[in-house]
């Protein structure tokens, strides 16, 4: 279970800085996700850790040992590619055996390892097939099997599921985590799908435009994001401009439009211009008791499976998106209905108002 430490890693392509002074530490045995919008540098970062790309500045350590000078083939890192990259001219069996064979492993041992891998992925019957004969999901499982076969303890996965159907993706992600945990590997998984990251990671690193924005457990990042970008990128948030009216040790009060919302957040400056983020599913509807009450009219609604989403007009220029779990048997709420909303202070997140304006901060 190797640990991974990256310090001050930077990579430039001409004028463009793809990765900008990124430092992170991953403990042995952790399943880490790196998420961010496309172009944020997460794949470039992964490739540098693998040794496929050389960094311009910074260092990389596995288990405390510097690996910068080691070429790819000597770093001992398993890599799963976004486009799967199974060798098209070799059968599944030969693909999985490739790593051990290339490293000079004795024939018997290679055979044993390959059998074990295929068993684990439930692909034993297809071992004679060529990659083009397998479905997308099977191909990806085969690619994972191949990457683990050499016996490396560190696995890097570059958007491994992005080419697959949504259904297959949601099935495979848990399998991936299970395999990594069962084998005691350390995994770094790059994805743009925040739902995927939340489902499988011990910790998540959020990247944007080449820099690390924030990191933490899924729960930490989702319910207590420290940065506005995280609040918006992970899941969904209502983001509203506001002003701090009062700031105490026990909490604060923020003015948003005509509303006065209580937030549990402390150490924010009174009078400061802020951006407030509230998650749609954490807004309560028609509760008898509740803090931060407001009234609104349903302006639109849409069905989303387990949830129904409403857009509520609180005032002329204040709209809130609210998500409510579907409850069969209760008469559905209609457009034009008036609802009373409430939200807990700990779910009213307050951030410094971005200097470039809201659009540049949460747009891309």
């Amino acid at each position: 279970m190797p640990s991974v430490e990256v310090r001050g890693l930077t990579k430039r392509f001409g004028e463009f800085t793809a990765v900008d002074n990124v430092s992170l530490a991953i403990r042995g045995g952790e399943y880490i996700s790196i998420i961010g919008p496309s172009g944020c540098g997460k794949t470039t970062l992964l490739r540098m850790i693998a040794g496929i790309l050389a960094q311009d500045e910074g260092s990389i350590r596995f288990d405390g040992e510097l690996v910068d000078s080691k070429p790819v083939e000597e770093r001992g890192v398993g890599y799963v590619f976004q486009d799967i990259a199974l060798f098209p001219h070799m059968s599944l069996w030969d693909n999985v055996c490739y790593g051990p064979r290339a490293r000079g492993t004795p024939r018997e041992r290679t055979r044993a390892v390959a059998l074990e891998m295929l068993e684990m992925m439930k692909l034993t019957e297809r071992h004679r097939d060529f990659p083009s004969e397998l479905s997308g999901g099977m191909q990806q499982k085969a690619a994972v099997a191949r990457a683990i076969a050499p016996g490396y303890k560190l696995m890097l996965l570059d958007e491994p599921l992005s080419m697959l159907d949504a259904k297959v993706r949601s099935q495979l992600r848990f399998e991936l985590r299970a395999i990594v945990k069962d084998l005691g590997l350390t995994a770094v998984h790059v994805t743009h799908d925040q739902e995927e990251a939340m489902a499988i990671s011990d910790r998540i690193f959020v990247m944007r435009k080449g820099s690390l924005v924030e990191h933490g457990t899924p729960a930490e990042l989702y319910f207590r994001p420290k940065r506005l970008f995280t609040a918006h990128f992970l899941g969904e948030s209502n983001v509203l401009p506001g002003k701090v009216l009062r700031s105490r040790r026990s909490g604060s009060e923020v003015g948003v439009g005509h509303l006065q919302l209580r937030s549990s957040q402390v150490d924010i400056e009174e009078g400061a211009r802020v951006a407030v983020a509230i998650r749609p599913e954490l807004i309560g509807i028609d509760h008898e008791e509740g803090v931060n009450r407001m009234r609104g009219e349903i302006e639109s609604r849409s069905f989303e499976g387990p949830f129904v989403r409403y857009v509520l007009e609180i005032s002329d220029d204040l709209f809130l998106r609210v998500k409510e779990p579907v409850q069969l048997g209760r008469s559905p709420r209609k457009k034009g209905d008036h609802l009373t909303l409430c939200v807990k202070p700990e779910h009213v997140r307050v951030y410094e108002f971005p200097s470039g304006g809201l659009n540049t901060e949460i747009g891309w």
Partner: protein
Amino acid sequence: MWSRRSLVQWIGRLSSNRLLSSSVYGMSVLYFILLILLPAILGVLMRLGSVEQVLGNQPLLSRSLSAVASSFVLASAVSVLDIIAGLPLAWVIVRKKAKWVRLLDALVDLPLIVPTVTLGFSVLLFWSSSGPLGYLGLPALSPGWVLVVLLHFSFSYPVVVRVLVGKMLELNLVYETAAKTLGATPFTAARTITLPLLSSGVVASLLLAFARSLSETGATIMVAGAFENGPVFIRNSLSEGLEGPLVFTSLVLITVSVAIFYTVKALKVNLQVPFERANVSLERKLSRGKVTTVGFYVAVAILLIFVVLPVVSLSLNYAPAVLDTEIAREVLSGSGIWGDFWSGVLLSYAVGCVVTILNVIFSIPMAVLISRRKLGMMSSMILNGLVSVPIVIPSVALGVSMMFFWSNVSLPEFWLIVFSHLSITYPYLVESLVAALDDIPTYLEETARTLGADSFRSFATITLPLARYSLLSGAILTFTRSVDETGATLAVSSQLRTVPVLLVDWVKNPFPGSELAVGIGTLVLLLTSIAILVVLKKISGGERNA
């Protein structure tokens, strides 16, 4: 008023008419079959009777068969040499990122610009006593099979490298990277992953080199001396006036070529050695920089000595002559032999233009038929296979066949030459067009259709512009190939002489001052061909879109 827009619309409306578009395709298929395919094969079959001349005559028979055998042995040897020397060079050009690699790239292209007669003469000179060998006091190489091998190597080597470079550039690097992440040393990754994936490219370039060697006539005659391969033997038989050997040799050449090519293509060769266990320490050593550097230097040396220097030395040798105002005036005046020279040049270019225009017009629908699989997968494959037939047939045999086919119709020699050149250049044009069309995704044209463009308009405004570069370079290739073509021309024409035929003639039938004349002639040819290429590249480069 006929505006361009309304013309396009009128054609477009016509193209929606399925009958009309079917007949356009039909005409292009007919063009192919009647003008290109059938004459090439039927001609010899029509004179099957005269084969008896050879079968009865033992010495003639054995001479003919050994000529054919020499052709194939020569072609095989040259192709193998090409691959062994070509792979490392192609690797360097694609993988190494130094500045001088660009220069290397350009040098490889050099022989492709040089007309083969020029190349033939320069090889003849370079290895003769007046070249570096004589300079160093070493025994010179006189015309014979050794010189032929060197010649064939020098013009097929760059072709092989070009094809390999192209295939390597297409290869997705991710597989090699994946292999390395699995622990394979660069050498292991190259031999177990990259090489097998290049199999089809290697085979394709081998076949190309093989075909070129079989076909090459003009320059071969210059350097062959007493050695006889197929084309040389046929040419000798032509000058001896014997029909039997012509038919017989052509027939055998055609049959064996076709058999070899289609067998190799069908075999789907896979360059893969079963991989059980890597010898890590050895392969790691082989991956090290030093080994690749040594391999690289050897490849470059080969390129220089066998390909570049002969041409350079020819130029140096005769440049002073060309620059001499006296001689220049004589050359340009067109007096005496130079009159023949310039009319030869005129003839070559006239033929080239006609051939290019005709082939371009009729190959486009054919390429569309094959690439877009309009008649289904199977038919496309069959058509594609048939189109390659003229490449497979050695050009001199093709010329012989053409001559016999059209002998019933009293066709002017000019058109005989045009038809034989049509046949030889057609496959290359169709192949490059098909490759270009294959690269243009069908969804572009389909989207255009759903936006309101009929099939002609969507082809003309979407696909054709995107294929413009390939079309242009295919046309240029057709033109230069036609100008270069000697074998078939020799077979079909007895009175008209294109420039290569003329120059070969001067070498084989020397007269006082002929060596100088050939030197100047080949150099002038080189210069004019470079000039044309530069002009054409400028035109095409300016039109190339982002």
